């Protein structure tokens, strides 16, 4: 469904991604894990068109994405929930959702999509006239994902959805990702919470200083000694 091939991305004179290749199968959950600064966010930003790769290609449903503008990529069916949510804080919950269904393909389904979002997150319906900036962290994350669902995406890219959430919301977030996946939405997930991410993922890629150093099924990587030592061990000892 999504094929990233030999991607080189630079920030000015600094190379951030080196020959990165990732593939995402339709209907799957794919996790992208790695330490801070490994290039996970950069990869998502390149897929969504915010950054231009210097080399390599990105193909989605047989169409090249790396030459498209961000707004056109959204219309292809890829939505990016960026790190830090990036909600429109001064706009109401409903206005945020409305903008989520902005594309010509999503707009006619606005009411239908809104019902779907309210079903996933009943609290958003209660707070629909409230400004997004006044929501709690967990509610804001719900709105960010709800806003993404409004676009009727085939693929949702989530950048650190559990960051800064309380343990209850973290669990709810992973349940939600599974629910969305059951609704035939493909998920590309970037997570610091590596244990949870690998547990839920069908396929996972490990990024280290701009390179893919390992890939495999989620549970395989979860069982891998190196991975446990490098990324999960620290958490377990806490």
């Amino acid at each position: 469904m999504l094929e990233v091939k030999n991607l080189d991305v630079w920030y000015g004179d600094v190379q951030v991604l080196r020959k990165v290749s990732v593939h995402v199968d339709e209907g799957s959950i794919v996790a992208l894990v790695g330490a801070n600064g490994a290039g996970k966010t950069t990869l998502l930003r390149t897929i969504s068109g915010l950054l231009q790769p210097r080399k390599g290609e990105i193909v989605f449903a047989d169409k090249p994405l790396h030459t498209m503008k961000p707004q056109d990529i959204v219309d292809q069916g890829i939505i990016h929930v960026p790190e830090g949510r990036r909600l429109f804080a001064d706009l109401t919950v409903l206005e945020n959702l409305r903008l989520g269904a902005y594309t010509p393909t999503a707009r006619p389904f606005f009411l239908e999509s809104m019902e779907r979002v309210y079903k996933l997150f009943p609290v958003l319906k209660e707070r629909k006239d409230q400004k997004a900036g006044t929501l709690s962290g967990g509610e804001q994350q719900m709105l960010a994902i709800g806003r993404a669902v409004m676009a009727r995406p085939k693929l949702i890219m989530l950048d650190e959805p559990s960051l800064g959430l309380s343990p209850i919301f973290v669990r709810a977030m992973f349940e939600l990702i599974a629910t969305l996946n059951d609704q035939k939405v493909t998920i590309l997930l970037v997570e610091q919470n590596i244990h949870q991410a690998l547990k839920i993922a069908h396929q996972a890629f490990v990024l280290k200083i701009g390179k893919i150093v390992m890939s495999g099924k989620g549970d395989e990587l979860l069982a891998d000694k190196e991975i446990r030592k490098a990324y999960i061990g620290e958490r377990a000892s806490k």
Partner: protein
Amino acid sequence: MILGDIGLIGQVVVNGILFGSMYGIAAIGLSLIFGTMRIVFIAQGAVIVLFAYFCFWLFNLLGIDPYLSLIPIVLVALLIGTGLYYGLFREAAALQDRIGSLLIAVGVMFFLENFMTVIWTPNPRAIVTSYGFYTLNLIGMHFTLVRVIGLVIAALATIAVATFLKKTLIGTAVRAASEDVEATSLMGINPDRVNAFTFAIGIGLAAIAGITLATTYSFDPMYGIDFAIKALVALTLGGIGRVGAAFMGGIILGLIELLGTYFVGAAWAQAIVFAVFLLALNFRPQGLFGGATSEKA
């Protein structure tokens, strides 16, 4: 002297409000353009004067009433605004560096000033309509009809723009873009379309201010810069990003200017305007109405 004529002071207050409403709508245009594109559109004043000349020509050459010419001039202004964005500001608006767009705006201003000087000479012009000197009398105060109409038009334009931004999808996108342009592009919103739209509204408001100016005062090609700076001051007073706040900032500025002129003279009034501007920047950089109104632009 101060208590000498309450009626006269009342008149000065009302005229200040009327005058300030023009600064107000100019400030809304600046606020919108700055909000979504971070462009300080210093040419706004020159554009206002250009539309005043349009109005002047339509009246003098074709005998079209200024208020009737409002509709075609605003329509032309919307086109000019779109053209300005795609023709001159599109590339610069995408840059992080804001100097480029400021320089282009300064260039537009100087071009228009000189262009207008060539076409219409540097002599002041004014529109003299049959009803231009008609005054309304209210509890001992006299107001010229055209100024009252000007205020009404400015207030209606402000309400219209605020409502539009609030109720329509593209208006919501404009408000969203003034918070976070990148996030709007991740929603599938084309930034160029939002920016062009915003520019069109900004220039449309300049047209309304231009017609109000043409019907109430005399103007010359160099009048614009003063107007643009006053609009910037109004914007700072009111608070950047909110339609109602920018309008109120204009009215307060108009009041300071006219009351200052009445009590201490015109020269001092200008000094006071900028002293207040500096004080406001220092003590309330978010504006007097930052947070007080909800229609964010």
